[in-house]
C-alpha cells in the first residue's frame, strides 16, 4: 500500500487514519472499545479510602443514631427496641416543645437580622472603594474566631455589673440589661451574638454575588432614570436571588444546629430559657445518659435541618434567572 503523507488538511485524511488504524488492529473510532481503552483509565478506586472513612465515621453512626432513637437504652444492659416510644415521649414532653420553640425563635430572629443586615452591608462594601484590604480583614475576623472566644467575650463584655456594655448603655441614658442572665432577653442576646459574628459572612457572599452581576443591566436602568430605591427593589434584589438563597441555606443549617456559643455562655439557662433542641439533646444524652431519648431529639433536629435545606432548594429553583 502506498503511504499517503498524513496531513490533516489532505482530502483523504480521515480515510487514511481509518485504514492505518485497521492495519494496526486498533478498534474502530467511535466504537465502544475506545471508551474502555487505556486512555480513559479508571480512577474511581481513588475515592475508596474516603468512602470507607465516610461509611465508618458518618454513615454507620447515622444509622446507629436512628436505631438508638428507636430503642430504650439503660446503661449496663443492651439497648432494647421499642419502636416509636421515644418519639411518643417527645410529643408529650414540655421541654421538647420549649426547645423547638426556642430553636425556631432563635432561627427566625437570627436569619432575618443576618439576611437584611448582610444584604445592606454587602452592597455597601461593594460600593466602597477605600481601604478594601482593611475592610475585608475586619469583615472576615468575627466569623473565623473560635466560638469559645465569642462566648468568653460575651461573658466579659455583657456582664450585668462589670461589663462594658451596660456601662455604655448607662452613658447614653439607657437602663442596664441582664443580657444572658435574664430569661426574657437571653435568646435575643444569643441571636445578637450570632448576628454580630455572621452578618459579615452574609455580606461577603452578597458582595461577591453583586460584583459578578452583568453591569449593562445597571447601565440600562440608570438611563431609564430609575430611583436608587427602584433599582434596588426591581433589579438588584431579584438578580441577587440565587446568591441570597445560598447564603440563607448556609446560615440556616448553622443556626438550627447552633450549639457552642449557647452551651458556653448559658448551658441552656437561666432555667431552661435557652435550652434549644441541640442543647436539650446534649444534656439528655451526656448529662442524664438517656441515650435513646437524646437520639430521638437529635434525629428530629436533623429532620428539621434537612427539611429547611429542601425548602431552600425549591426556593433556589424559583428565584433562578
Amino acid at each position, binding site marked *: 500500500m502506498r503511504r499517503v503523507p498524513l496531513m490533516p488538511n489532505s482530502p483523504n485524511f480521515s480515510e487514511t487514519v481509518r485504514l492505518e488504524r485497521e492495519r494496526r488492529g486498533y478498534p474502530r473510532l467511535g466504537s465502544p472499545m475506545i471508551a474502555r481503552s*487505556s486512555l480513559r*483509565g479508571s*480512577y*474511581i478506586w*481513588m*475515592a475508596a*479510602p*474516603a468512602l470507607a*472513612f*465516610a461509611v465508618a*465515621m*458518618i454513615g*454507620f*453512626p*447515622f444509622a*446507629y*443514631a436512628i436505631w*438508638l432513637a428507636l430503642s430504650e437504652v439503660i446503661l449496663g444492659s443492651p439497648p432494647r427496641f421499642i419502636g416509636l416510644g421515644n418519639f411518643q415521649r417527645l410529643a408529650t414532653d414540655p421541654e421538647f416543645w420549649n426547645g423547638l420553640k426556642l430553636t425556631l425563635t432563635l432561627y427566625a430572629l437570627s436569619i432575618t437580622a443576618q439576611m437584611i443586615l448582610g444584604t445592606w*452591608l454587602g452592597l*455597601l*462594601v461593594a460600593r*466602597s472603594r477605600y481601604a478594601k484590604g482593611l475592610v*475585608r480583614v475586619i469583615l*472576615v*475576623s468575627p466569623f*473565623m*474566631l*473560635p466560638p*469559645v*472566644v465569642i*462566648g*468568653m*467575650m460575651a*461573658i*466579659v*463584655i455583657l456582664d450585668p455589673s462589670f461589663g462594658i456594655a451596660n456601662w455604655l448603655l448607662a452613658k447614653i441614658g439607657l437602663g442596664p440589661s441582664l443580657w444572658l442572665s435574664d430569661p426574657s432577653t437571653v435568646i435575643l442576646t444569643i441571636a445578637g451574638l450570632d448576628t*454580630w459574628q455572621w452578618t459579615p*459572612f452574609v455580606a*461577603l*457572599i452578597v458582595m*461577591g454575588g453583586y460584583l459578578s452581576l452583568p453591569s449593562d443591566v445597571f447601565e440600562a436602568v440608570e438611563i431609564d432614570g430609575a430611583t436608587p430605591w427602584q433599582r434596588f427593589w426591581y433589579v438588584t434584589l431579584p438578580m441577587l436571588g*440565587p446568591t441570597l438563597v445560598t*447564603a440563607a*441555606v448556609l446560615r440556616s*443549617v448553622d443556626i438550627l*444546629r447552633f*450549639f*457552642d456559643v449557647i*452551651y*458556653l455562655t448559658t448551658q441552656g439557662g437561666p432555667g431552661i430559657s435557652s435550652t434549644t433542641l441541640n442543647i436539650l*439533646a446534649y444534656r439528655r*444524652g*451526656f448529662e442524664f445518659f438517656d*441515650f435513646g431519648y437524646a*437520639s430521638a431529639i*437529635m434525629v428530629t*433536629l*436533623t429532620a428539621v*435541618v*434537612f427539611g429547611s435545606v429542601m425548602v431552600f432548594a425549591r426556593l433556589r429553583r424559583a428565584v433562578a434567572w
Partner: protein
Amino acid sequence: MVRERVARLFDGVQLVVVLIVLALPIAWTFLSAFKPRTEVAVLPPKLFFTPTLENFVELFARNDFLHHTINSLIVSTGSTVLGLALGIPASFAIAWHRLSWPATATLFARMAPGTLFLLPWLLMFNEIGLVGSHLVLILTHAAITLPIAIWVLLPYCDALPRELVECAQIDGARADQVLRLVVLPVIMSGVVVSAILSFVFSWNYFLFALVLSGIETKTAIVASFNFIGEGVTNWGALMAAAVIIALPPLILTLVIQRRLVGGLAAGAVKG
C-alpha cells in the same frame, strides 16, 4: 454632583460605624488581655495602661495551658492531614468520573448536627477503648475536615483540563504519578485553601473534644471552657486565653482572606 458626594459620604459613615461595631469587641478582648489584673474590670475602662504579660504568665503557670494548646495543634494538624489525604484523591476521582452523588453525600455530612454523631461515636470508640486518645479526636475532627476538603477541591478538580491527564496516561504514568505530578501541582492553590480552612475549623471545634477528650488530651478550646465553668472570675487570664486560641485562626485566615468566602460557600454557589 453634590447629591452623589453626599451619598458617598453617607456610605462612608455607615461603613465606618459597622467596622467599629465589628472590630471593637475584638480589640477590647486583646486590650484586656494585656491589662494589669487590677484594671481589667475597672469602670470607666482605662484606655491607657502599662501593658503587662502577667495574665499570660498566670494562664500558662496555673492551667497547664501550653499542654492543651499542643493537644489542639496535634488534633488540628492530624485531622487536616487525614482529611486532605483522603480528600485529594477522592475529589480527583469524583471530578474525573463526573459523579454527582458524592457532592450530595458530602453536603449531608456537612449539614447534619454534630450531636447526632456524638452518641454513636462515644459508644463505638468506648467499645474499642479509644475514648480520651488523640486518635479519636483526629478521626472525629476528620469527619469535619474531609467534607471541607472535598467541597473546596471539587471545583478545582472539575476545572482540571482532561488533556493534561490524558497526556500523562499516553506517557505511561501510573495512577499515583498522575496524582502527584500532574493533578496536585495544578490544584495546589485549592489544596492550600482547604488545608487552612480545615485547620481553622478543626481548631475551633468544641463539641467533639468536650465529650471525647480525656484529661491528658483536652484541647485548648475545651480547657478554656472549663476555665469559664470553674467560676473563675479572673477576667485577665480569661482574656489571655481568648487571645491565645484566637490567634491561629486569625493569622491563617489573613493569609487566604481573598479566597476564604469562596471556599466556604464553594459548591453551594454552584447549586
